[in-house]
């Protein structure tokens, strides 16, 4: 173990119109967790994709255990002992958990051609047990929640017994208990001498698990710091190049007299939800807390008409409304920002402009239903500016933007539509601290303008900081309701774990 585990030097990479990386360097020691931080679009994922053979670098060198290497494809990276958990899920939804984890490495017999399915499942069960992860090897991945899918991805990366493991925002979809499991795993790996590159926007995590932090900004290397000697505020200012204010509680209040804009009564679905009832007032931010799979997304989708409601009533401004499809919801002024922007939020192959205007397109057409592009461009440009969406132009395809900027496009879509009730499902998932603050500000502004907001979040600090009122869910039921003053992390967790037994 003389040489360093990994050294990347002078790495540059351009995409058409975007210089994603310019002369970036990074080094990693045995048994170390190196955090890689930077704003959305800083180039973190791109750098890691170069390391794992997904992209080819334009220039620069990579040294693995002292030897200069070329990484032409994903397979080569695996063979060199580099394994990666991608930011986007990379699973085969029609295969089972076990089949996903060991794809290409299945136990075989008969000319190495026939599968030993039983052995595969046993092997997976063993691995899952060893890692202390609760998953059924035989379950089909498409039936799993995003969080569980993320766990599959993690298990798959760990199963390679790699020397280097890259984790690109592994916790973005996870809740507290799984994050803890993951951190235990990381600790274990460290002790075995594995080097880990850890990308996350959750600053508090970095403090807990990282040894050093490398900061990137705008495709450039900024600095590397030792975690224990560093104040997180410093990291953040390096990242964004400015100082960020941090509140811990809402800055506004909702008056008692504020009218109720949305009331949900006894909403149930056959499969899961049970008697969900709550109200939302004008200008209020209502937080929805709960553990993974508590049913918050289901509630949101049901109200929005994305899924079928089996029972229950919805009142808007005191009048009962029937919402059978998202179109109805939008007509009644409800907007829904989903937790999985790639699948449910964006037209990745279309440009930023089209994505922003899609919901409000009817405002930009003449009597012949022809779209008035120039009028639309003005609106798009406005939102690109006001939300600080980092894009070369509004004509850029959505798929070419970084995760955080994609999220902002989805927000812009609903702002352009000017809905009164906004449901934000994990609005800051995968978003950097700078942008997070901007989004918090935005939510507050919107509330002040009299919009009503439901904010679903798995990050308790975020819930506490933003919500006027908090609803806690567990197993498809509402188990508690707290005002901001009463609420604390402990209380919320208490309600969130009130399972039936």
């Amino acid at each position, binding site marked *: 173990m003389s040489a360093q585990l990994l050294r990347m030097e002078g790495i540059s990479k351009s995409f058409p119109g975007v210089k994603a990386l310019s002369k970036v360097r990074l080094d990693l020691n045995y048994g170390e967790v190196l955090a890689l931080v930077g704003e959305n679009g800083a180039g973190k994922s791109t750098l890691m994709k170069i390391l794992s053979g997904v992209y080819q670098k334009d220039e620069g060198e990579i040294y693995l255990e002292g030897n200069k290497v070329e990484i032409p494809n994903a397979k080569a990276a695996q063979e060199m002992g580099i394994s990666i958990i991608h930011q986007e899920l990379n699973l085969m939804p029609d295969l089972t958990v076990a089949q996903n984890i060991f794809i290409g490495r299945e136990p075989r017999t008969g000319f190495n051609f026939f599968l030993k399915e039983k052995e595969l499942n046993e092997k997976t069960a063993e691995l899952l047990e060893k890692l202390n992860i609760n998953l059924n090897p035989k379950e089909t991945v498409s039936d799993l929640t995003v969080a569980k899918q993320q766990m599959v991805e993690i298990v798959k990366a760990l199963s390679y017994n790699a020397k280097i493991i890259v984790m690109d925002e592994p916790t973005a979809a996870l809740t507290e208990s799984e994050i803890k499991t993951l951190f235990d795993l990381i600790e274990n790996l460290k002790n075995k001498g594995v080097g880990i590159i850890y990308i996350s926007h959750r600053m508090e995590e970095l403090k807990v698990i990282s040894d050093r932090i490398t900061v990137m900004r705008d495709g450039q290397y900024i600095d590397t710091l030792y975690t224990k000697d560093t104040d997180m505020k410093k990291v953040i200012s390096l990242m964004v190049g400015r100082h960020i204010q941090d509140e811990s509680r809402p800055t506004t209040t909702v008056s008692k007299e504020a009218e109720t804009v949305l009331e949900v009564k006894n909403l149930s679905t056959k499969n899961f939800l049970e008697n969900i009832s709550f109200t939302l007032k004008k200008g209020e931010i209502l937080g929805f807390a709960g553990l993974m799979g508590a049913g918050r997304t289901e509630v949101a989708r049901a109200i*929005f008409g994305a899924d079928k409601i089996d029972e229950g009533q919805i009142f808007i401004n005191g009048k009962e409304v029937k919402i059978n499809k998202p179109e109805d919801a939008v007509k009644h002024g409800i907007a829904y920002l989903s937790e999985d922007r790639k699948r449910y939020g964006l037209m990745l192959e279309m440009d930023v402009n089209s994505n922003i205007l899609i919901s409000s397109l009817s405002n930009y057409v003449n009597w012949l239903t022809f779209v008035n592009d120039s009028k639309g461009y003005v609106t798009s440009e406005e939102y690109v500016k006001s939300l600080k969406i980092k894009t070369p132009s509004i004509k850029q395809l959505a798929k070419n933007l970084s995760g955080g900027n994609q999220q902002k496009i989805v927000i812009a879509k609903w702002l352009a539509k000017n809905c009164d009730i906004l449901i934000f499902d994990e609005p800051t998932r995968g978003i950097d601290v700078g942008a997070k603050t901007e989004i918090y500000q935005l939510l507050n502004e919107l509330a002040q303008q009299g919009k009503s907001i439901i904010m679903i979040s798995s990050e308790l600090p975020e819930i506490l900081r933003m919500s006027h009122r908090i609803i806690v869910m567990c197993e498809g039921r509402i188990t508690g309701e707290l005002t901001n003053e009463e609420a604390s992390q402990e209380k919320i967790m208490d309600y969130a774990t009130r399972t039936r037994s």
Partner: protein
Amino acid sequence: MSTGTAPNTETKKSGNLLKSNALQQILAFASLIVLILFFTISSDNFLNWTNITGILLSTTVIGIMALGTTFVIMTGGIDLSIGTGMTLCAVMTGVFIVFWDLPIIVGILGGILTGALMGFISGFSVSKLKIPPFIATLAMMMIAKGLALVISDATPIYFSDKPSFSEIALGSIIPGFNLPNGVLIFIIMAIIAGILLTKSIFGRFTTSIGSNEEATRLSGINTDKWKIIIYTVAGVFTGIAGVLMASRLNSAQPALGAGYELEAIAAVVIGGTSLSGGKGTILGTVIGALIMSVLTNGLRIMSIPQEWQTVVVGFVILVAVYIDIIRRGKSS
């Protein structure tokens, strides 16, 4: 933040875009131009006005079907019913005009409406019943084929008593300019389709649904309704193609059309429209349709044996699409 670099990238980018856009426009024609040059050199009889109008006229029916089906393919769907569907429209036009003796214009509208109705049913099956487009329109293809025979009693319906009917495709409305009306109609339909796709909310939603249907639905757009509309509009194009076919043959031939859908779809794909949806242009489809008909015509003019013609067409399709793929790869 680093403000200095940003504007730089932007101008550079748009410069690149301009260059590559211009290149794209030219290269999209490349296969077609190469073909035309080749045939012009190979045969004296290729590049003259009669043959050019001949080629254009032979493009009209498949071309108009291809225009309509471009929308369907843009949504990520497919329409296999356009071939025999076109025939059913022709037969219905015959029924209205010849059997029921309705005015020609009513008969034409009736034929077009038949297409719209078929499109509506396909769209309904696809969006409301969630039947995959391939299978929904395959079924529709069979139903249309059978119905065309049933309704016409398996006999051609002749428009001989309505001499003006054949003027629709073969007459020439522009005085002194010997361009068949059918070609004119094709050009007009192409322009309409182009405007619809790029300028109207209809086209925007078509692209959006093809790009990500679920995200479009969750943006508050009634995707089911729009898919029905899209298939119906495609059906209108099929109907127009049927009327033109009937006019050109001065008769509704009830057994025609099986397999034509593949030609139309090939034209669309050669034109660069992606079968997985979200990407495509009308100009591309027009070029694709022209490539197909120039090729067929040129090979015939050169008196290439028929069985070899099929082989060559297959091969050219491969090459044309491959060139298009390379071009895209380069330009992006």
